[in-house]
């Protein structure tokens, strides 16, 4: 059984109020490490057996069609151990 991960983030030019809220909250709690924070989504997809190239291609299609909205978001598909 393997895990395919799809990371979905808002495009850089799209306003991210959630990320901004985190950015603003961190220094209030005394954390000063962050220059900026963006918040996105992470999908963990469990599949049966090892992922094939065809399967990964299918996940790409599903990500494009359903998991991400290409108007405002970008995504990355990868296999995680």
């Amino acid at each position, binding site marked *: 059984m393997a895990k395919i991960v799809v990371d979905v983030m808002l495009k850089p*030019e*799209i*306003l991210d*109020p*959630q990320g901004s*809220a985190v950015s603003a909250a961190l220094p209030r709690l005394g954390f000063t490490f962050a220059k900026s924070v963006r918040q996105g989504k992470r999908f963990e997809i469990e599949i049966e057996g090892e992922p094939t190239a065809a399967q990964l291609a299918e996940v790409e299609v599903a990500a494009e069609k*359903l998991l991400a*909205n290409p*108007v*405002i978001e970008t995504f990355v598909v990868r296999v995680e151990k």
Partner: protein
Amino acid sequence: MKVGVVTFPGTLDDRDAARAVTTGGATAISLWHKDADLKGVDAVILPGGFSYGDYLRCGAISRFAPVMEKIIDAAKGGMPLLGICNGFQVLCETHLLPGALTRNSELHFLCTDQKISIENTTTAWTSSFTQGQEIVIPLKNGEGAFMCDDETLAVLEGEGRIVARYVGENPNGSRNLIAGITNERGNIVGLMPHPEHAINTLTGPTADGLGFFTSVLNAMVK
């Protein structure tokens, strides 16, 4: 005239939309998300609510409902189509309208009596208003901030496709105070606030919303 009102699992304001249609003088026909035909309606409303719980992204799952295929075809052929709130989100997900609706800038659900100005009275849903008319109708959503790239925004502004704008302080971070937009042809309108909850002063803040439902009576399928 028959106006279809679609119910997806999780739709909430369908009865209200149907009541507004009736009050406006048309006949409301209920459409189920699994329906394969449009029951001969002349126009369709995608009402508000939390279809599929608003999970993933608002409207992202509903856009694939069987009934949507027919609606998309009919709307491309000129049938008047109004998406209110969640319906607007569905219209953006289907790409019948450009842009997307994202999280309110304050990050919570906001229910308020909102003043908007009607900026385009040539659409199928706004002909009963006068240009620049200011009305007050409820706004209630968690993801109502209209976002698009600069190019799209320029096109929308340039072609007068902003149907309604928030008046006063920006309630949710929408670009250019956009409360509603239309397609090039003017038959498809997406609107974030809820005109169906402003059809009388007993249950709504005003009766200002009725104009959307009377407008469509004048719009014939071309």
